[in-house]
């Protein structure tokens, strides 16, 4: 394994992915855009997990479980998120986040 330092590079890659996702969440205006950015961030987390499992831990077993269950969570969240977006769309004909500012104060 000549590139021993390489796995930290993967962690940094994951971090970059996480950060880009975060940037996306802050910038994107449409709800779906934000959801997609959130997906990116979740992928970053999973890369992180798998890399630890593979390179640091004795057996990658735990990391796999962790990743699988994370995927379940993300899938559920996407399910709910999109259902919500569609419901809002049916009400107001918009999914632009900035128009939704009735609740304040």
């Amino acid at each position, binding site marked *: 394994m000549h590139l021993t330092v390489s796995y930290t590079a993967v962690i940094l890659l994951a971090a970059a992915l996480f950060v880009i996702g975060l940037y996306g969440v802050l910038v994107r205006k449409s709800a779906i855009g934000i959801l997609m950015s959130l997906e990116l961030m979740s992928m970053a987390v999973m890369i992180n997990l798998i890399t630890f499992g593979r390179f640091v831990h004795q057996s990658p077993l735990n990391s796999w479980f962790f990743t699988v269950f994370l*995927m379940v969570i993300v899938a559920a969240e996407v399910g709910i998120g999109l259902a919500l977006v569609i419901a809002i769309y049916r009400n107001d004909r918009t999914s632009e986040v900035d128009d939704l500012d009735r609740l304040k104060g």
Partner: protein
Amino acid sequence: MLNAIAFVILGCAIILGAFSVVTVRNVMHAAYWLLEVAVAVAGLYYFMSAEYIAIMQLLIYVGAVGMLVIFTVMITQRSQVDNERPGVFSLFAFIASGLLFAAIAYGVIKSPSLVASAPQAPMSLLTFGQQLFSTNGWVLAFEIASLLLTVALVAAVWWTKDRDN
């Protein structure tokens, strides 16, 4: 063992894809880029000898999540114009993300305990399966996950029903 070249290619694909998901104006194109990133990540898993996870990644992210996103974009696409709305570049977000990345990077580089362990014995999927369903293992987590998905199901059904008294 990780093949350096494969890592570089996949890394670029992921970063480029993520960047364009975030910045491209048309939401549909963003969705496509998301699929691209998902595939790249699956590849990364494969190279880290986590084949099963790679397959799961493809199944869930590309198959389920990607399709759902595209499907929703199509439904809520009122007009071409909407999609073309220019993404605004916010300095605050950029600086914040940069700082966050720097902090994490600093932490990762400085951390002494993240030392590479001895080469692992190849792990068979059999143990994964057994552990998943043994009471000492992850059956509890599995059950909770199932409940989670039921909730998602109920939510989706409830919100998309027309009559709601």
